[in-house]
């Protein structure tokens, strides 16, 4: 590239910058720097006249690098990039110095602020010398979609997309569809049949011409990138391969195994059962103990595996309502039974759920509060002289008393947790998991459906514990996102990506596991790492990890950052001369 010719523009931002920073002095100081052709200050650089000034200067003075020192690049970097484009320059030949948010708005001392502004602008000038032209790229989207998981979320998303006329591959690792909801009798808070809903879904899915269901299939070895993913299907033949443009991860949940909690005796006390086991009992219509007796005393224990630092610290969000549902169902099935609920906090949030609690509390149910962090209820076999099967000792915290509850049946409201193999799924789709092994969404509030990997969306309980309506809502949202991306047909990909200099890469493969997006692969033939620039997001972590400097991140190269450091510190007063002995 030809010799850099830099234009520097110092913005006043009305009085926002000008009243604290001596903009004229800053602009003047920049004139002395190497390759700076002109340095100006102007009232509003982002205004049309301001932008026109840059365009005019570029054309008249043959400028090929621009430094705009104004507000945060997070606000106007795109604006000025477009300005450069209008002037026929590559937009990446711009560097901004943030002298508003980081200088004039946070400092009062004019002298210090002006000095700081000078060093920031000087850094931008030295940096922009090393900027390179970068080109935008787009890729086509394959209209097929892969959905991982055949539970309520996966089924919903599959139907939504298939109904829109697009192909769906529905992967289910077990031999049947339906997921956890298939094991639920009635759903809270309206006591409608979950069975009916899920069976209808399954029936429609099986008949749908656009849905291809792959049972007993795990998501493995997915390669590719947004718009063009691939997954081999070795059991169908060597070359069998699925091709799809988007992925919806809906791997769902696994009920917590309460046998880890010693106090509950799950596993060796026959009449201690989990909530899903009780659902089975409800479905069969027979509520009875292992010996076939009708239970007289039934205890429901909340927060089993939830909200406790030894198990999971999060709240599983549905157990309180399910427990209230159980209590209500039990009361109508066994009007004479004594029903107890040992709860930690009653969290009956959501539409009509507080009402469910109010109704249940009218049904002669004894609510006992325990501290799920400190004293868990302890279940033991009742001695023979007792009528009941078990005795449960509970530290009841509303009274402060240790109480004993007789029980013939104990139902443990087990937590929702991530599947063990979710790590494999996360790895294959290139999405990270949070500390609890739930998938991390792109933004917890503004983008809870997408992930930081383009083309991969999440739905249902694989993201966080949730109930059926929330899972369905998220599944439909994910489906909508997929459909809109199919509709656009193309996707623009990151420009500031990393790339490998194959002449330097030694093939140590350090970078491969560093990349959170699996964007780096290994070329066995040349024994070098290769960055898939479509997958790369440009974080630059691989560049720092590369021991040879073979991987460079565009727009954030070592040279660019180092020169920025040099420029920044070149303005400080304490200078010492460097002498080199030369012959």
């Amino acid at each position, binding site marked *: 590239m030809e010799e850099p010719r830099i234009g520097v523009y110092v913005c006043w931002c009305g009085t926002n910058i000008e009243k604290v920073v001596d903009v004229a002095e800053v602009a003047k100081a920049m004139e002395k720097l190497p390759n700076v052709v002109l340095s100006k200050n102007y009232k509003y650089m982002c205004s049309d006249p301001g932008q026109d000034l840059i365009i005019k200067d570029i054309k008249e003075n043959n400028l090929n690098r621009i430094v705009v020192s104004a507000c945060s690049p997070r606000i106007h970097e795109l604006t000025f990039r477009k300005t450069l484009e209008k002037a026929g320059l590559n937009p990446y030949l711009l560097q901004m110095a943030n002298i508003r948010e980081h200088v004039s708005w946070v400092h009062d001392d004019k002298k210090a602020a002006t000095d700081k502004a000078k060093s920031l602008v000087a850094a931008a000038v030295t940096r922009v010398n090393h900027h390179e032209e970068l080109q935008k790229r787009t890729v086509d989207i394959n209209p097929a979609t892969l959905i991982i998981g055949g539970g309520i979320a996966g089924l919903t998303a599959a139907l939504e997309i298939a109904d829109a006329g697009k192909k769906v591959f529905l992967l289910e690792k077990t031999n049947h569809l339906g997921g956890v909801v298939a094991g639920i009798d009635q759903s809270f808070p309206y006591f409608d049949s979950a069975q009916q809903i899920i069976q209808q879904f399954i029936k429609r899915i099986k008949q749908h011409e656009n849905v291809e269901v792959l049972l007993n299939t795990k998501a493995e070895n997915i390669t590719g990138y947004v718009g063009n993913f691939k997954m081999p299907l070795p059991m169908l033949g060597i070359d069998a391969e699925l091709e799809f443009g988007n992925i919806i991860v809906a791997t769902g949940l696994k009920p917590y195994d309460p046998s880890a909690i010693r106090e509950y005796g799950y596993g060796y006390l026959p009449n201690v059962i989990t909530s899903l086991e009780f659902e089975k009992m409800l479905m069969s219509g027979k509520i009875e103990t292992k010996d076939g007796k009708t239970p007289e005393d039934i205890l429901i224990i909340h927060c089993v595996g939830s909200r406790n630092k030894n198990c999971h610290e999060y709240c599983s969000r549905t157990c309180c309502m399910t427990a209230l549902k159980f209590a209500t169902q039990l009361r109508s099935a066994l009007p004479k039974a004594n029903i107890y609920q040992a709860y930690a906090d009653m969290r009956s949030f959501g539409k009509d759920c507080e009402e469910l609690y109010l109704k249940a509390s009218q049904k002669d149910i*004894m609510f006992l509060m325990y501290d799920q962090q400190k004293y868990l209820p302890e279940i033991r076999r009742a001695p023979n002289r007792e009528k009941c099967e078990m005795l449960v000792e509970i530290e*009841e915290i*509303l*009274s402060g008393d*240790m109480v*004993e*509850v007789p029980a013939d049946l104990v139902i443990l409201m087990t937590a929702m947790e991530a599947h063990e193999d979710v790590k494999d799924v996360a790895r294959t789709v290139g999405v990270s998991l949070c500390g609890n092994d739930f998938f991390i969404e792109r933004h917890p509030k503004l983008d809870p459906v997408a992930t930081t990997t383009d083309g991969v969306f999440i739905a249902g309980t694989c993201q966080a514990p949730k109930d059926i309506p929330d899972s369905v809502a998220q599944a439909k949202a994910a489906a909508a996102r997929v459909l809109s991306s199919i509709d656009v047909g193309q996707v623009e990909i990151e420009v500031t990506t990393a790339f490998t200099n194959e002449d330097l890469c030694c093939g140590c493969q350090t970078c491969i596991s560093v990349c959170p997006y699996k964007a780096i692969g290994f070329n066995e033939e040349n024994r070098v790492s290769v960055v898939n620039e479509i997958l790369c997001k440009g974080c630059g972590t691989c560049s720092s990890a590369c021991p040879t400097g073979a991987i460079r991140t565009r727009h954030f190269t070592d040279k660019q950052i180092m020169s920025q450091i040099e420029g920044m510190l070149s303005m400080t007063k304490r200078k010492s001369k460097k002498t080199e002995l030369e012959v």
Partner: protein
Amino acid sequence: MNNRVNPGFKKELQKFGMSEQWNECFHCGNCTAICPLSENEVLFPRKGIRVIQMGLKDKLASYVEPWMCYYCGECSETCPRDANPGELMMTLRRYLTSVYDWTGMSRKFYTSKWWELSYILFFALLVIVLFLIYLPLRPDAYLMVNESGGVMLNHLVAGISGDQFIRIIEFGDWAMAIIVAFILVSNILNMFYKIILSNKSFKVPFYAYFTEFWRLIYNFVTQSKFSKCDDKNYWVGHMLLMTGYTTMFILVVVALPAFQTEKVVDWYNWQRLLGYYATFGILFFLTVVTIGRIRKKDIKLQYSHSTDWLFIIMLGLTTITGIVLHIFRLAGLPAATYYMYILHLAILVPMIMVEVPFSKWSHLAYRPFAIYFSRLKQVALSKQYSTGLAPAI
């Protein structure tokens, strides 16, 4: 102590008049916070409600807090769930009275109107029959009017002298007092056992029984706890009732010869002044409470157990017959006076026999004792804390 929860226990308490809303409580604790009497270690009514909800019978038997409550009703007014904690405390007092009562009569009275009515009728008839057979009206009773026009009350009975009549009545008084006192004292001992002795988690130091004894007397006389309720009028009303009743009790039992005089003494004499004071006090209280219970505006008077009404009716009738008796006497109507006397006793005797050992009036004794016992418990616990023997609650 058995700490087994008991969902059926609420039914038991419902028999003692527990209101419908008992289970509404979600333990916000507003009631305990607002209660002017709930303090330090003696916190109520929330915890008591929890004990009821869980049906911890043994815990309840040793529960002293209900006696600290004088039912100002603030808790029930503050309750966001309308669980009516004040009424629950009242229910507990009824229940505890029956728990302390080893004879089982109290329980029968509280849980069955018919039992109570038959018991009352039995004593009423007993009084009437005894009078009509052994102390009949003398034939010349019409002569028994003295010069000032008042009936000579002690000379209305045939065959015995005025002194003898007084002694017979006095004997009846004392016999009744002894029976009642025996039952009451034994019930208090039972209460002591339930609250202090059966609770193995603390041991009362011997000296405390003496050092804390003054509280018993002081609280009995002043009802000072009551004055801590925010509604001071209520304390005044209650004091009027209490003092009026006590005055009358002393007059008719201890000072009967001075009270039931041969002649009607002049109005400014002490007997009559005290009598009027007592009548006024009781009547004032009765009027206020009756109006309140009928109007149901004041929360503490909204829920009336059958025993509440019976108590008001009995006390009211006793007072009214007493007043009428007094009027008849002043008006010089010997026969009317005589029959009114019998009627007065036929109401008074069953009332004493029911209320003092088994019902409302026993509270008069239980309350100061409860304060005493609770102090003993506190002394014991604080001593254990300081010596590190007791587990933290």
